[in-house]
């Protein structure tokens, strides 16, 4: 109790955060009830008719739900894998550069796209992959007929993953570069004296130094596996690529805000949250086991 008295200013500082949490995170949780109702705005949350699991049943009857869940998984997993690997490779290569100025320049240039929103990026992407875009001009030189990439369901997912990696790899590499600065230079010197060449230095010194970081980032991103990127997909897709590009978030958006099916959208959103919750739970367990990482 005496301890509490001493620390009361700390608790006071905690208060605004707690109030915020209650107002914006705890209270809205009651809205989940909508998923089990035939929600009528005129009657409100308390008087709307309860329908049990009807919304969920209808949701899984729709062919859409399967397509959308599958797309979400594929796109999100693809992004996680490539957003781990490409920055890693990039960071290692950058680390091998001798010229500090050139290194800085490259780093600055590649992480610029991170700061552009998808609204702007989508225009650039559509420009590049458009019918008269850069890509078609280049493959045209080899005699290939121009293709309409943005309308091709067969490659839309790859396009999403690719452009996301392009936008983020420079930024994601920062964490690896930071980890690399922590490597003791003595290790390199010792290995060099033992006769290791450059490739062996990377394999035996650099990579092991990064393993923990890679594992940690990989495990943590598991909780994100259902976040396939609303902004990106919403700005790039069109009906022609619904079959491979429509994800849970865009689906919920269309159901709830464009078609005013509030209950169905809430049900779909809740479904996503529950799965994400389980994945976060698992990922923290894994993070603890393999990377010795805990939040609490």
């Amino acid at each position, binding site marked *: 109790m005496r301890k509490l008295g001493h620390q009361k200013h700390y608790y006071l500082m905690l208060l605004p955060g707690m109030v915020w949490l209650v*107002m*914006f*995170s705890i*209270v*809205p*949780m*009651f*809205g*989940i*009830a*909508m998923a089990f109702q035939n*929600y*009528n*705005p*005129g*009657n*409100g*949350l308390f008087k709307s008719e309860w329908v049990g699991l009807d919304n969920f049943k209808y949701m899984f009857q*729709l*062919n*859409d739900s399967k397509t959308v869940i599958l797309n979400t998984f594929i796109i999100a997993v693809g992004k996680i894998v490539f957003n781990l690997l490409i920055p890693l490779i990039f960071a290692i290569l950058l680390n091998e550069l001798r010229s500090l100025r050139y290194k800085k320049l490259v780093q600055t240039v590649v992480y610029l796209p991170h700061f552009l929103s998808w609204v702007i990026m989508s*225009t650039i992407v*559509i420009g590049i992959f*458009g*019918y*008269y875009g850069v890509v078609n001009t280049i493959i045209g030189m080899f005699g290939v007929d*121009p293709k*309409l990439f*943005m*309308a*091709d*369901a067969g490659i839309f997912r790859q396009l999403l993953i690719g452009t996301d990696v392009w936008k983020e790899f420079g930024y994601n590499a920062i964490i690896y570069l930071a980890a690399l600065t922590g490597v003791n230079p003595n290790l390199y010197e010792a290995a060099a004296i033992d006769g290791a060449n450059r490739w062996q230095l990377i394999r035996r010194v650099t990579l092991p130094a990064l393993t923990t970081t890679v594992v940690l980032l990989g495990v943590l991103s598991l*909780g*994100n596996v*259902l*976040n396939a990127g609303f902004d990106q997909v919403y700005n790039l897709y*069109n*009906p*022609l690529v*619904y*079959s491979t590009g429509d994800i849970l978030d865009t689906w919920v958006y*269309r*159901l*709830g*805000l*464009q*078609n*005013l*099916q*509030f209950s*169905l*959208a*809430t049900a779909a*959103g*809740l479904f*996503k*949250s529950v799965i*994400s919750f389980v994945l*976060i739970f698992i990922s923290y367990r894994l993070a603890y086991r393999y990377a010795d990482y805990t*939040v609490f």
Partner: protein
Amino acid sequence: MKRNMAMLLSVVLLGLSLTACTSSNDSASDLKAPSKSDSSSATPALSGDDLAFSKFPNPVDVHIGMVVDPTDKTLPEGDSVSNNQYTRYLKEKYNINVIVDWTAATGNDFKQKVSLTIASGKLPDGMVVDDRSFMTKAASSGLLYDITDLFQQYQSSQVKDIMASTDGRAMENASYKGKMVSLPNITVDTDGVHVLWIRKDWLDKLQLPVPKTTSDIEKTAKAFIDNKLGGDKTIGIAGPSKNSFPYSTFLLSSNNMGGFDPIFGAMDAYPGYWLDNGDGSVSYGTLTDNTKNTLALLADWYKKGLIDPEVGTRDNVGDPINANQAGIFFGPWWNGGYGNGDSFKNDPTANWQAYPVYSDDNKWNAHMKTTGSTYTIISKNAKPDVVKAILIMNNALVRDEATFDLSVAVGWYPLRNVMAAANETEYEYAELLKVLKGETQPEDYNKPNSLYKLMYADAKKVKDVIKAPFDDLNVSNFNTANFGDFQRLYSIMIGDRPFTTIPIDKKVFSVTYNQTPTMETKWANLKKMEDETILKIILGQAPIDSFDKFVKDWKAQGGDEITKEVAELLKK
């Protein structure tokens, strides 16, 4: 971790708006609004237009939600959304205080805000929504004021005339289950009749006649491309972008720039419309053989490279048109003029002309639109005086719009919902031609409260913009010095000419322009299937036979059920 929290948050966003916004609006208006007995004792002596334009003895507060065009720069320094020339006008003339509860930017921002406002069940006193499903959702949830009686009492004679010009369609459009729950938007009928827009100067260069049928169009488009009249990237026919549609539908029945509506019409196909078969049954126009045949034709055109290769994925159909790469597109009367202004700026000789597309047996078939697609909705919780104030605001807009100082965009007028006589453009076309030929004088149209509210202003300008000869107008007849006037008069005199001067052989109305109960849950899925199938067939990504599978799936996944419901409507 943060992202996950954000995700959890977003799931329950709908719920948040629901619990957080408890009755802030009504309590605020309680404070200042005069008590009921006050106002009703002050008004009974008045009637007709005196009542429709009466000034409140005490200030009335009207809380509104408002759409704001973020690119608009016309509001003078120091003025704001709730204090500008229009709000001051309402305050001075009618003692109406406009209080803006929230604003949202044009487009998706506004739609989201409206959607969330409805979901939370707490509407401002008044707001203008731009989709009928918003209105019906709010009405079916019991959120809207029944204005049936007040409207009868408070509408101005001008509004009454405009309502009457639609033969009751406007009233039906504004009603839900027989009760008038919103003020309808009434736009000119010709907004829903899509015509062929073509570069006449290109035709003249190649000494080609104006194409009449689909096969003529095919030949013309091919000639444009072969002769590279729009440069290396010449597009024969521009098509819908990712934000417009291959054709208008019963829910969005007008103003479809870049759609293929006239081609479907020429093939006697009306996709997206509910068709009365004449024997008490209805069918959905997309499922017909004629639609399938038209799709086969369009797919063939696409394959031959006549249609914009980037159709369906472009940001804006206007881009290639304004860059003068395209020779043909389809759209309503205002598309040439208002819709493609930059095309004229980039090439002053771009002589865009509008014509109907005929079927092979020489018929002009056109689908017709509903009266309008925006609605002023009024909250159930609004005080009667507030409702009256909103009706008066509407009357005042209709009467005085032409007299406002329009250097401040009229979009800033609170609760602006356009009401124009259904035949306004046709009337203006005919009368402006008379003014040009000297048969009438602009002063002849100086009639305040006229049904055609912009007629006088246009009559005064028309001679400055259009030069003789008047019988066969081309772009060279127009003076573009005042570009706004040019756009309006070009749209009326060129764009509306087909609709005004050529009778339509077959006008097709949809059995309904509204959603039935089953549609509210199942339409999104069906529409998605339809959009996907149609575009894929046109772009050659799916064989034409996939159409049959679509028809089967469509029927099985709720289509049959919905068709029955629409057939019920026919019986009423």
